[in-house]
C-alpha cells in the first residue's frame, strides 16, 4: 500500500507526529489570517488613496493605535506558539527518550555516500564493535567479528525494518560526510554528523512496506539516490520472524551463528 501523498503534509504514522502537524497547521492558519487581514488593509489603501484629481495627500500622520495592538498581538501569539505548542513537542522529541521499561528497539543507523546502513543488535541486544579500518565493500559498517556481541548482529543496506507499536531508538552516525536521516511519514529528521552518534526515537502506528527513508542533506553527487526502503511489521513477532529468516540466511555477518 503506497500511502496517499499530496500537496500538504504527507500522511503521519507516528505517535508524536500529530503534534508537529498541529503546530504546522495552526501556524499556517495564523499566518494566513495575518496575511489576509493585512492584505485587505493594503489593497483598500491602494484603491482608496490612489492619486486622482481632487484628492490630496494628508500631511498629518494617522494616529494608528491599531498598529501597536496588532504588533503586540502578533508578538503575543508568537509567545503562545513558542511556549504552548512548539517547545513541548520539541522537548518530548528530544528529551523524553524511552526508558528501559519501554524496552525500545535500538538500531544503529550509519550513513555513507550514498546509502543508509542499519545495524541490528539481535537477541542479545548489544551491538557488536565496529571500527573504521574494517569498513570494506563486504563489511560496510566495519563490524568486528572477533567481538562475541557481533555474532547475532545483522546489517541491512538501504532497507530498514521495524515493528509497529514499539518504541524505536536510532543512533544516527555516518562514515564519511554529513547526511540527514529522514523518514517523512514518521516526522523524524536528524543530521548524521561525522564523529558523533546522535540518538532519535519514534514509534510507528501503521504497518506496510511502501515507506521510504530519505537523506535530507547534500552529501555528494548521488545525494538524490540515497534513499532506503522502510518496512514496518504488524507486530514484534512478525518482525522477529523476519529477523530470524535473515539471520539464518548465512550472510557474512551471521556465519558464526550457533
Amino acid at each position, binding site marked *: 500500500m503506497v500511502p496517499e501523498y*499530496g*500537496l500538504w*503534509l*504527507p500522511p503521519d504514522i507516528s505517535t508524536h507526529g500529530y*503534534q*508537529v*502537524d498541529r*503546530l*504546522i497547521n495552526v*501556524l499556517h492558519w495564523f*499566518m494566513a489570517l495575518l496575511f489576509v487581514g*493585512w*492584505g485587505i488593509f*493594503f489593497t483598500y*489603501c491602494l484603491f482608496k*488613496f*490612489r*492619486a486622482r484629481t481632487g484628492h*490630496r*495627500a*494628508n*500631511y498629518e500622520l*494617522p494616529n494608528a493605535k491599531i*498598529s501597536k495592538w496588532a*504588533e503586540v498581538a*502578533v508578538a503575543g501569539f*508568537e509567545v503562545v506558539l*513558542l511556549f504552548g*505548542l*512548539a*517547545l513541548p*513537542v*520539541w*522537548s518530548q*522529541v*528530544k*528529551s523524553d527518550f524511552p526508558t528501559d521499561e519501554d524496552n525500545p528497539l535500538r538500531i544503529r543507523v550509519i550513513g555513507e*555516500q550514498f546509502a543508509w546502513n542499519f545495524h541490528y543488535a539481535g537477541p542479545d541486544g548489544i551491538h557488536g564493535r565496529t571500527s*573504521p*579500518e574494517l*569498513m*570494506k565493500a563486504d563489511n560496510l559498517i566495519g563490524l568486528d567479528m572477533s567481538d562475541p556481541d557481533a555474532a547475532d548482529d545483522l546489517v541491512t543496506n538501504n532497507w530498514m525494518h521495524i515493528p509497529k507499536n514499539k518504541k524505536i531508538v536510532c543512533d544516527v552516525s555516518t*562514515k*564519511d*560526510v554529513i547526511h*540527514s536521516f529522514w523518514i517523512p511519514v514518521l516526522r523524524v*529528521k536528524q543530521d548524521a*554528523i561525522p*564523529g*558523533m552518534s546522535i540518538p532519535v526515537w519514534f514509534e510507528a502506528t501503521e504497518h506496510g512496506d*511502501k515507506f*521510504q527513508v530519505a*537523506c535530507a*542533506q*547534500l*552529501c555528494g*553527487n548521488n*545525494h*538524490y539516490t540515497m*534513499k532506503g526502503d522502510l518496512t514496518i511489521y504488524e507486530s514484534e513477532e512478525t518482525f522477529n520472524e523476519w529477523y530470524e529468516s535473515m539471520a539464518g540466511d548465512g550472510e557474512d555477518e551471521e556465519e558464526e551463528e550457533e
Partner: protein
Amino acid sequence: MSTDHHHNPGFIAKYVFSVDHKVIGIQYAVTALLFLFFGFCLMMMMRFQLAYPGEEIPVIGGLLAGALDPDTGGFLHNLAASLVSSDGFLLPEGYNVLGAMHGTIMVFLGVVPLAVGGFGNYVMPLQIGAPDMAFPKLNMASYWVFLAGGIVMLVSFFLPQGAAQSGWTSYPPLSVISPGQTMWLIGMVLLITSSLLGSVNFIVTIIHLRAEGLSFFRLPFFVWAQFVTAFLLLLAFPPLEAAGVLQLMDRVAGTSFFMPTGLVVANEVLNVAGEGNPLLWQHLFWFLAHPEVYVLILPALGIVAEVIANNTRKPLWGYRSMVYSTIFLGFMSFIVWAHHMFMTGMGETMSIFFQTTTMIISVPSVIILTALVISLWGSSIRFTVPMLFALSFLPMFAIGGLTGLPLGLAAADIHLHDTYYVIGHFHYVVAPGTLMALFAGIYYWYPKATGRKMNTMLGHMHFWGSFIFLNAVFMPMFFQGMAGVSRRLYDQTLYYHGDAVQSLTRMSSWGAWCLGIAQIPFIINFFASLWMGKKANDNPWEATTLEWSTPTPPPHGNFTTVPVVVCGPYEYSPPDKPDGFTPQMTANA
C-alpha cells in the same frame, strides 16, 4: 584623494580606475547585474533537469556535449565535462555545481554588490550631502578586489576540477573532499576583504561627512539601512574569513580542523590527523550567514521606504520606530544563527534560546512592514513604475517573512528543514522581496545617474511579468516542501512523495523560464534608455532628499553649493505647501 579632483583625468582614470563614488557605484551595479543574470541562467538550466529529469537540455545540452571532446572542446571542455553527459543531459555533479554557484553568485556577487556596492555607493554620499566617500581610493580598491573575487569564481568553471559543488553553505567534510572548492574559498576570501573595506568606508562616511544640519534623525531611511548593514558586514564577515582560511588549510595543507577521526570515504580510512569538528564550520558560517541575510534585506527595505515616501506624497509613518527597529534587527541578527542548525542534534537549552531569539527578531520586521503599510493611509499614491515594484515588495516580503516563523520553531522545522519549503521561504524574501526592491531602485535612480528616464511601457511589462512569474516559480515550492521534497535534489521522482508533486515542479520551472522572458523588456529598457530615454530634469520625481537637489548627473564633488539641511527627509505635502514638498536642502546657503 581630494586633490585628485583638480586634475583633468584621462578616460581610464575617469571611468575605469575611478575614485569617484558615482562611477564606482555604477561599476558595481552593472557588474552585479551581469552576475545576477548569469546566476539566473545557471538556475534556468537546473530547472530543466528538475522538470524533465534525465532529458537532454535543449540547445545548451547539445552545445556542451559537443565540447566534451578534449581536442575540439577548447576552453569549454572542462566546463562541459563537469556539467553534462555525452547525451547532453545534466550530470548529478553538474547539478550540484550549478546549485552551489547559483547560491554563491546570487548572494555574494549579485545582490550584495548591487544593493550595497551599487546603490549604497551611488546614493548614500549624495543623500548625506557628502562630496565623496571618506576614503575614495579604498572605495576603488574595494571594487577591484570584488571583481577579482568574481573572476576567480567564474574562472573556476573552466578549470579541470570544475566549480564548487557543495552548496553555498559548503559544509565540511563534503566540501573538503570534493573538487573545485579551493577556488571557491579563494574567491570568498577576496569578496570578504572587499566587503570589509567597503563597510569601513560607509561607516566613516556616514558618521563624519553628513552635511550641516543633517542630524541622524534627519537621515533618509535608506542611509540608516546602509549604516546598519555596514556594521553587519564589518563584524560578521571576519568569522567567515577565519572559517574560510581554516577550510583552505584543510584542503591545501592537509590539516583536519573539520575532519573527525576515522572518516571512511569509499571504504578507505582518510589519512588525516582527525579530531576535528564539522560543526565548527557550521557555527562560523551561520554566524556570518544569518546577519548576511539581513544585509540582503535591509538595503532593499531602505529603497522601498524612499520610493514609498516619494510616491505617497506624504511623510513616512513611524520613521523613528523604523529606525530603532532596524538597529534592533541588526543587533539581534547576531544571536539567531543556530536556527539553521536545529537538526544537528544541539541540546535543548541551546535550541530554546535560539527559537526564542528567532521569534523576537521577527517583531522588528513586523514593525517596519506595518509602518510602511500605514504610510499609505491618507496618502495620494502615484503608481509610477518604481512604486509598483516597491508596493509589490510588501506582500511578497510578508509571505517570505511569515514562512520564516515555522522554520524558526524547531518542532515544525523537523519536517520542514532542508525541504523546498526553506527554498520557498528565502526566495520570497530575496527574489520577490529584495530583487523587486532593487528593480524599484533602478527605475527610481536611473534618471539621476544617466539624465534620462526609463521607458514606462517597458517598465510595466517588466513589472507584471516579474510579479506574476516570480510567484509562479516560488509559490509551488511551499507545497513541494510541505509534501516533503528535499532541496538540492537532482531527481525528486525517485521518492513517492516527490513523484506525487512533480507537476508542481514542472510548473515552477515554466515559471522560471517565463520569468526569464519577462526580463527582456528590462534589458532592452536599461540599455536603450541611455540613448532614447526621455530627458529628465534634476528632480523628475519631485523628491525631497538631497540627491535630487544637485544637477543631473551630479558633477565631481556632487554639489555645486555647500548643502545645508533644514528639515527631515520626507517633507511631502507640508501644510505650507499642500501640493508640493520641502527639499531637505536649502536652495542657497
